[in-house]
């Protein structure tokens, strides 16, 4: 992945003006910031959905969206298999294995309309994990889910990401989600000349030890809160 300049405008509105952002390899970079600060746009730039010349990311990327975006005419298994290449049987076997691992074996033959919101989002996460790409892009993937489900999904995600580490950019509005997941946290704000980084800190504490009440976690949480309320 190249550390290239990003410039995006929507009409007269400057979103990024020669902005540089380089996610650390095989680490999770969380991006926080108010609405309109360019978080989702940044993901779309990395996904190639907003073209840049030259490209910011030349390789493949997996993307998890706010909504599941599963194809309604395919079963959960086939929604995973469709992002793979190779023989149909092998693709389905691979999809079955991951669904089993993610405790979604019962959902394999179900269509998205037959899945609950949480299950559909887990299938979408599985689709991103099964897709062989060096870059994982996540756009508020746990938004709108109840707290217990959010926590379970974060646990699932961390477990499978740690098995097969890859570079990830995780956009969220939740300080807690960022603290639980991130190796590095970046806060964006929308300045006059597009997005600016107002906070950028590595967080190297083991994920299993991260809990509210821990002094390091509380300090980071307090710092992030101060930055975000000042924007």
């Amino acid at each position: 992945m190249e550390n290239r300049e990003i410039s995006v405008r929507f009409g007269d509105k400057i979103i990024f003006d020669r902005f540089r952002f380089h996610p650390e390899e095989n680490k999770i970079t969380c991006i926080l910031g108010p609405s309109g600060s360019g978080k989702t746009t940044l993901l779309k730039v990395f996904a190639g959905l907003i073209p840049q010349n030259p490209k910011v990311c030349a390789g493949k990327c997996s993307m998890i969206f706010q909504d599941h975006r599963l194809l309604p005419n395919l079963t959960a298994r086939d929604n995973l298999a469709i992002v793979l290449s190779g023989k149909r049987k092998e693709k389905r076997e691979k999809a079955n294995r991951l669904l089993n691992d993610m405790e979604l074996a019962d959902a394999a033959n179900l269509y998205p309309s037959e899945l609950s919101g949480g299950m559909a989002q887990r299938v979408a996460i599985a689709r991103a994990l099964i897709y062989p790409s060096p870059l994982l892009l996540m756009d508020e993937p746990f938004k709108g889910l109840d707290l217990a489900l959010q926590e379970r999904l974060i646990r699932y995600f961390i477990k499978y990401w740690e098995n097969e580490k890859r570079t990830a950019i995780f956009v969220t509005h939740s300080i807690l989600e960022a603290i639980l997941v991130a190796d590095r946290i970046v806060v964006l704000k929308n300045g006059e000349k597009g997005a600016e980084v107002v906070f950028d800190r590595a967080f190297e504490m083991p994920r299993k030890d991260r809990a509210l009440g821990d002094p390091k976690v509380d300090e980071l949480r307090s710092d992030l809160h101060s930055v975000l309320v000042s924007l």
Partner: protein
Amino acid sequence: MTGKRIAENVVAPIVGLAAFIGIWYALAAAIGKEIILPTPGETLRDFFRLLSHRFFYAAIGRTLLRTILSFLIAFSLASIFAFLSKICPFFRKAFAPFTILLRVLPTISVILLVLIWFKSATAPFVITFLVIFPMLYKTVTDAADGVDPNLIEMGRSYGFSPSKLLFRVYVPQMTPALLTGIGITLSFSVKLTVAAEVLAYTKESMGRYMQQSAAYIETATLLAWTLAAVFLGFLLEGILYLIKRSLTRWFYGK
């Protein structure tokens, strides 16, 4: 099937049909002249008489062939032009006046002009094509515009090739809207082809035999041919229903 569903799906249509036949019979009996309005029985008598003639099947076959052929060509071209419109906004704008013109052009003007320009055997085919092409073009473009942009974005982000995006995202999403549009247009095509055959006096066609029956004031025979046209419409609708049903699981997952 529960009692309520049987009442809704079986009894209600039978009651409707019986009421229609009853009113028809009462009117025919009140008028009392077969030449003006034959009874349902007299119409059925002529219909079964037609069934024993080879020309009846030949006429239905030719009318059906004209309808299906003009429909298939119109649908194929409408799909190609809709695809070009989707990938090239300039083409869409440039093509818009042509489709709007065809759409607003009075059908009778199209029929009369085509009758001047073409032979009676090809005129019904051309007329049906010209009238249904803009309808099908609009059906396909509307269906393509209705595809969820989020799914397209998902496909692009996962590196779907253009053909994968077309056949795995666009086509399944467009299918329900397409089938609805096709159902409406196909029924209309049968009516249009028969009407064009009547006006063009096309040899060995349902329209020609209907025209002949009208000329000799054989009202029962005319109604028998009408009954055959209705059955033809039902047959096409039935085939479409079966296609729709088999595709429902594919699209909706039910």
